[in-house]
């Protein structure tokens, strides 16, 4: 599929990423440098990094496929599913985390609730990230195998080698700065495909007219708001309650790999600005990943598997050279996801597990070394577990479903933790455990409770709501925290008017 120029672009991209990432090794002298970039990074780099690590190669294919099947309503995930949550994060949560000098979200939960809540949250994220790593390695290997003919194991080891080397030595600074380059590669490759596809279908209006005449199943293809009784997974009620109110906030406020980036900002303004700048960039993502799927409805009608839409569009639309660039864009998506998982998991393990449970009070160089060794161990685990993906093709979906159990309850304890000072440690712990259990129960018996096939948006809402109810009820029955315990951890109007004191 690739021509000589395409091979050159892809290999130049991979080598360039490795050299750029390794350049940042010289800035790593302490654990703060490794995990928080020495708190020295500008908003624009962090904003781009947030966006690019959020969108992986699997999302390129998956979202295009969903746009092919369900239309423009898939864009809700990057529009209403990002902007309000990122503004809430920018103006309320990030300043607390940044001023508190925190490294991880579970660290906040530990200070606000107790060590058990911190450990449960941290272990869940570590498990999720570690499992995801193997899946991503396998996905990148399949991509390299199909497009360049590389054997699977060579592909896995080369991906792990390149990303692992710069993440091991350069820490989060290398992760963020390589993300910046990956952002431009993704946008240039993605927009090239969109513009050429638009030309192929005769422009936007022509495409809309053609799709409108293709049958009743395409009637709502250009309605961003789907009716409550739609058979698609995106009814407006699910988008509003499940996505906007819960999942988006849980992702932007409770996801370590997103929030950790903002904590690397050089000052509070840059921390806030990085989220808002990221939200502006996020609005372009549906154009890159959704529009090719819509255009494929016209160019390749009647596909049984919507996930074929994007590969077919690349094959039929892009000339040599741009295919290589688009492939580099895919690879950029994968690399940015893998490096984020590596660094975030190393941070979670070092700060939430190793430091409190294995070796307290060691010198800073020791924790820096632990972070680097954890990165190495994770790489080995990721490579070793990657073949599981071939034995269980649905594992990526299974991991995402597993995470959706966690989103509602974790956001409920974050929200009440910061906005309601009466919330107690036992309230938070009960809400987390019972909320996760309830989400699993709803998913196992979903046919009995829901009319749509994939009700993950509804499950996140109801598990969030139960988390709030349990947290409030148990908190009112247990001993409240003292003002000293809550210092700097609960929202106060003082943060808005006095600035220095929380």
């Amino acid at each position, binding site marked *: 599929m690739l021509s000589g120029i395409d091979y050159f672009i892809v290999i130049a991209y991979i080598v360039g990423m490795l050299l750029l990432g390794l350049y940042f090794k010289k800035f790593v002298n302490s654990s703060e440098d490794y995990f928080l970039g020495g708190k020295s990074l500008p908003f624009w780099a962090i904003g781009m990094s947030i966006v690019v690590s959020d969108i992986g190669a699997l999302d390129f294919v998956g979202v295009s496929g969903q746009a092919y099947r369900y239309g423009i309503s898939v864009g809700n995930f990057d529009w209403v599913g990002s902007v309000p949550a990122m503004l809430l994060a920018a103006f309320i949560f990030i300043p607390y985390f940044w001023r508190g000098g925190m490294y991880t979200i579970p660290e906040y939960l530990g200070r606000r609730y107790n060590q058990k809540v911190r450990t449960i949250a941290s272990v869940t994220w570590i498990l999720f990230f570690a499992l995801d790593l193997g899946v991503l390695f396998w996905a990148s290997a399949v991509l390299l195998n199909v497009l360049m003919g590389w054997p699977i194991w060579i592909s896995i080891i080369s991906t792990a080698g390149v990303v692992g080397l710069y993440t091991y030595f350069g820490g989060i600074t290398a992760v963020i700065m390589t993300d910046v380059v990956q952002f431009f590669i993704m946008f240039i490759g993605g927009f090239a495909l969109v513009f050429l596809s638009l030309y192929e279908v005769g422009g936007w209006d022509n495409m809309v007219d053609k799709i409108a005449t293709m049958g009743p199943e395409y009637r709502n293809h*250009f309605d961003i708001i789907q009716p409550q009784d739609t058979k698609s997974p995106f009814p407006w009620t699910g988008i509003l309650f499940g996505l906007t109110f819960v999942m988006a906030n849980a992702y932007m406020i409770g996801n370590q790999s997103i929030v950790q980036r903002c904590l690397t900002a050089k000052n509070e303004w840059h921390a806030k600005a990085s989220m808002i700048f990221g939200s502006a960039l996020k609005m372009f993502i549906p154009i890159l990943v959704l529009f090719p799927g819509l255009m494929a409805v016209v160019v390749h009608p009647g596909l049984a598997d919507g996930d074929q839409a994007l590969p077919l569009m690349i094959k039929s639309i892009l000339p040599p050279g741009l295919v290589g660039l688009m492939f580099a864009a895919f690879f950029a998506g994968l690399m940015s996801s893998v490096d984020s998982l590596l660094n975030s998991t190393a941070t979670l393990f070092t700060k939430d597990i190793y430091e409190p449970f294995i070796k307290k009070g060691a010198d800073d160089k020791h924790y820096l070394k632990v972070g680097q060794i954890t990165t190495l161990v994770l790489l080995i685990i990721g490579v070793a577990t990657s073949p599981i993906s071939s034995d269980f093709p649905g594992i990526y979906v299974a991991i995402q479903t597993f995470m959706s159990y966690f989103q509602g309850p974790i956001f409920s304890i974050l929200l009440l933790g910061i906005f309601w000072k009466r919330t107690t440690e036992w309230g938070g712990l009960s809400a987390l455990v019972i909320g996760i259990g309830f989400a699993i129960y709803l998913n196992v018996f979903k046919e009995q409770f829901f009319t749509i096939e994939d009700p993950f948006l509804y499950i996140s809402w109801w598990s969030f709501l139960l988390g709030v109810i349990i947290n409030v009820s148990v908190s009112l029955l247990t001993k409240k925290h003292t003002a000293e315990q809550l210092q700097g951890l609960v929202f106060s109007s003082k943060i808005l008017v006095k600035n220095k004191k929380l």
Partner: protein
Amino acid sequence: MFNFDWLSGVSQENAKMVFLSLYAVIGILVMLLPTEYIYEGIPKEDRHWWNNLKLWSIAVLCILASIYNHF
């Protein structure tokens, strides 16, 4: 109840108004934030209209509202 059947009578147009109203409310809340808080981290002499995060937020919300209004 779990499927929000009680909202089945709300038309797509009205549902769209719910989303647009949400953006308006967020915009108002952002505008209510004290200017000092918005600029925290920037020395007073370097504060300009282009690094006013309220304006950034309102611009993003306007684009978002335009998308939902159009589709």
